[in-house]
């Protein structure tokens, strides 16, 4: 038994495990809203946009995390604003805003003669390099977002399903939309360092999509999604130790496998249900 826990004897693995768990659960909880609102590309978009924040932070000698977070939140608010004012769909708004912010980052970077930030690790993440201070930020932000999700649960659910009628009832659908976008932005920033851009986008979508295969109710979907997020992040980290591969990539591979298992399970259930119908209704077989 203890032999199984060998990887977690190292402090860096312990920190990585805590960070992975926080990020996995948080991303997959947000992911439920992200996929039900059809915002699959928001994670990718905000992560790219935050690149501009890193470059600006580098130029001003500020904290990269802070720079990325500020630009991510501004981009999220901008996405909501352009969507409402421009009467364009959210995904179009995401497309307009994130490419603009990303281009700004590239432009600013191209004017720097000696750019020496370790962008590689920020964009692609290195969960094994999480320092005690990073861990505090990750866990603190994750707790903040988790509390917001709990407190705003009913409003977020109602405005996700039916914003118009919720608004008529006095629930400010627009405010909830902005709050959700900001929460997604913070979640992406938390996830960036640990798993990186592409991978944070996956954790925002795949566990929730897997959960959606297995239930037709919101609360179980929310819970299952978080469970899948936790299993993939811890499981992926653990497997990556033995597989000697990238931990971020392993985490995403595990969540992808979980998704296809869920899809398979659903198909099995459906064909079982079809068989039952045939057996119980003789009229159908005549």
């Amino acid at each position: 038994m203890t032999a199984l826990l060998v990887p977690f004897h190292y402090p860096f693995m312990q920190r990585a495990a805590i960070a992975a768990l926080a990020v996995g659960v948080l991303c997959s909880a947000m992911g439920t809203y992200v996929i039900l609102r059809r915002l699959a590309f928001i994670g990718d978009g905000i992560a790219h946009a935050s690149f501009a924040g890193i470059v600006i932070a580098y130029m001003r000698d500020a904290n990269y995390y802070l720079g990325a977070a500020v630009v991510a939140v501004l981009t999220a608010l901008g996405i909501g604003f352009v969507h409402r004012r421009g009467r364009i769909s959210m995904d179009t708004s995401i497309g307009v805003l994130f490419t603009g912010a990303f281009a700004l980052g590239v432009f600013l970077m191209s004017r720097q003669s000696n750019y020496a930030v370790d962008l590689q690790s920020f964009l692609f993440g290195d969960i094994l390099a999480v320092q005690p201070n990073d861990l505090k930020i990750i866990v603190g932000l994750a707790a903040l977002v988790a509390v917001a999700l709990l407190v705003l649960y009913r409003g977020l659910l109602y405005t996700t399903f039916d914003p118009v009628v919720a608004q008529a009832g006095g629930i400010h659908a627009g405010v909830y939309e902005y709050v959700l976008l900001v929460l997604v932005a913070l979640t992406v920033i938390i996830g960036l360092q640990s798993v990186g851009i592409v991978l944070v986008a996956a954790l925002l979508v795949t566990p929730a999509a897997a959960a959606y295969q297995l239930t037709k109710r919101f609360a179980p979907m929310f819970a299952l999604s978080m469970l899948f997020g936790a299993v993939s992040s811890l499981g992926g980290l653990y497997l990556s130790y033995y597989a000697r591969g990238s931990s971020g990539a392993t985490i995403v591979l595990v969540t992808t496998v979980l998704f296809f298992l869920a899809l398979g399970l659903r198909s099995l259930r459906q064909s079982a249900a079809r068989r039952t119908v045939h057996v119980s209704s003789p009229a159908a077989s005549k």
Partner: protein
Amino acid sequence: MTPVVHARDLVVRYDDFVALDGATFDLNAGEALGVVGPNGSGKSTLLKTIAGLVARSSGELRVLGSEPRRVAMGSIAYVPQVESVDWSFPATVWDVVAMGRFPRLQFWHRFAAADRAATARALEAVKMRGLEHRPITELSGGQQQRVFVARALAQEPQLLLLDEPTTGVDATTERALRDVVRNLVRGGLPVIMATHDLDTVESWFDRLMVLDRRVLAIGNPRDVADSGAYASIREHTHTHGHLRIDHAPHEAHALHPEIHP
């Protein structure tokens, strides 16, 4: 007593298009007001404006004594004409009807026994008891409509706005729905409902408004039925059916409701 809805010269525009042109009327507690008019006459616009979903351009509008967008949470329940929700949303009939309680609950309050009771009563009212565990994906069109009416009832609002709630609903359910609404009205709830069903207006409403961008007539359903305004709409719906969209309002009707085209 202050009226529940107080409108004076209410004008609503979509960009340059005037959808409501100077509507003046009052709605009192315990009164059911029916709104009839051809397609594009501004019925839905009127309901949306009262619900605070569309802003007025000019004129006066007080709802439950305040600005439309400033009424207390949960006081207006609205059943839209077209529900553009995602039908693959993971929710059961119960889940959707229970959402009607959300505007009334502060976020630190639990969904308590009283909320469950109100949800159950609303399901009963639209004859959906026994279907509460059905995922909404698996509902028929008429059942979907009933779920949305039930959600509005579960809210126990101070003002109920119904936009053609009986479209696609079978005759039995329509009668049941009418009994429920009439009961609520008797208990003091004000209701505004848009409809195309001119044959049943007398059994539904205390007052009837004939709308064609302007208020052509308003009053006792029978009196309005005897007036030319009603006949012109009748004529219109009978000759063109209910399917015309973007109908251009007849200025002649507005000025001389008794004149037939």
